[in-house]
């Protein structure tokens, strides 16, 4: 019985450069290398990173919104690998009619305060800005549709110096934390994480 695909494979294996890999070990090595490359590529996909100039954007995420909700928040860690400070000056999200950058805090009396950052948010040179629950966030207003757990939605971040970059927000559960959608970063709060390690999710 002749199977054309196997025939083709046999011919391919007997052609340069594969005919040079005679031993089982050599062929195993090539397969291992191919798998390693695939793994490395999938890592960067799972890490959910975006780059523009010296700015690295690590795992933008949001939370599922209640029915009829008109607002949502976006979170992300932004790293500046450059030697000059930059500013996140604006953001967009396809689910929102309008987007602002906000600072939020809960004071000692238990009062939640929220303020739009008119001049945007500084990303210090060689440092980072962490947009996370209870702190800075991207505020999506006039929601055109709800955000559903497990989906992603598109958006853009614009920096004063580095310019604009398209990103995707991963939508977590309503009270959820980043990284529960198979995008790595189990808890997402590890400041030492350079964005390329620990993606075991």
């Amino acid at each position: 019985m002749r199977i054309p695909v196997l025939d083709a494979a046999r011919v391919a294996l007997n052609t340069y450069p594969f005919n040079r890999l005679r031993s089982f070990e050599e062929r195993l090595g090539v397969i291992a290398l191919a798998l390693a490359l695939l793994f490395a590529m999938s890592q960067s996909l799972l890490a959910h990173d975006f780059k523009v100039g010296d700015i690295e954007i690590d795992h933008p995420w949001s939370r599922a919104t209640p029915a009829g909700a008109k607002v949502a928040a976006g979170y992300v860690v932004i790293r500046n690998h450059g030697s000059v400070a930059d500013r996140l000056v604006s953001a967009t999200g396809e689910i929102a009619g309008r987007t602002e950058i906000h600072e939020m805090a809960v004071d000692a009396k238990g009062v939640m305060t929220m303020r739009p950052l008119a001049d945007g948010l500084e990303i210090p040179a060689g440092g980072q800005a962490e947009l996370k629950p209870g702190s800075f966030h991207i505020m999506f207003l006039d929601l055109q549709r709800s955000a559903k757990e497990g989906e992603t939605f598109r958006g853009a971040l614009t920096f004063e110096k580095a310019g604009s970059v398209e990103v995707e927000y991963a939508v977590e559960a309503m009270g959820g934390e980043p990284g529960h959608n198979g995008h790595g970063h189990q808890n997402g709060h590890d400041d030492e994480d350079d964005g390329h390690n620990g993606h075991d999710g």
Partner: protein
Amino acid sequence: MVIRTVMMTRTTGTTAMTARTTVRPLQLVVSVAVIAAALLAVGVFLFGWGRNVPASLVTIGGPFTLTTHAGEKLSDTDLKGTPFAVFFGFTHCPEVCPTTLWEMSESLTTLGDDADKLKVLFISVDPKRDTPESLALYLQSFDPRILGLTGSEEAIRAIGQQYRAYWQTVPLEGGDYTIDHTASVFLMDDAGEFIGTISYGETMEARLEKLRRLISAEAA
């Protein structure tokens, strides 16, 4: 207690000044008295003598009549005999409100049948936008036992004052606005008396323990 200590310090202080000009041993005694009074004042400040005031003396809570998300009237008298948890918020709230409602929903699920022994109220501080209909839609995403409440601006302002809840409208671009507000959950016993609060960001364990205590306070 505090006032009495302060007065004592003042009197001994004056005596000290007179003493310094006269007899030495008396000066020593007075110095010791002044130091003792100062230590007493520090003690009062640090350990809060007189701070064990029963919670009921701090008047948080009171009568109200508001409209539920189902369009029905609900007043404090309807809640007599049932402990309840109150949260002030609004639906145009990006984080604290949905998170708190979600955490309360999770807590009610964990409490199981015990959850039926208490009521959870979500009072809108944004009655202009939060109608019973919009609250009903919003609360579809949470435990059906959570009651949304809204009312006239006067009624909402009145219950806010009774609960010592704070809120403040903050204008945004394009005539839009957001609201700074107290993010704590108020826990009230079956007689409508204030028992304590759950702060934003407390762990699920702490929250569950407080809710369980609230339910068992009803049985006591």
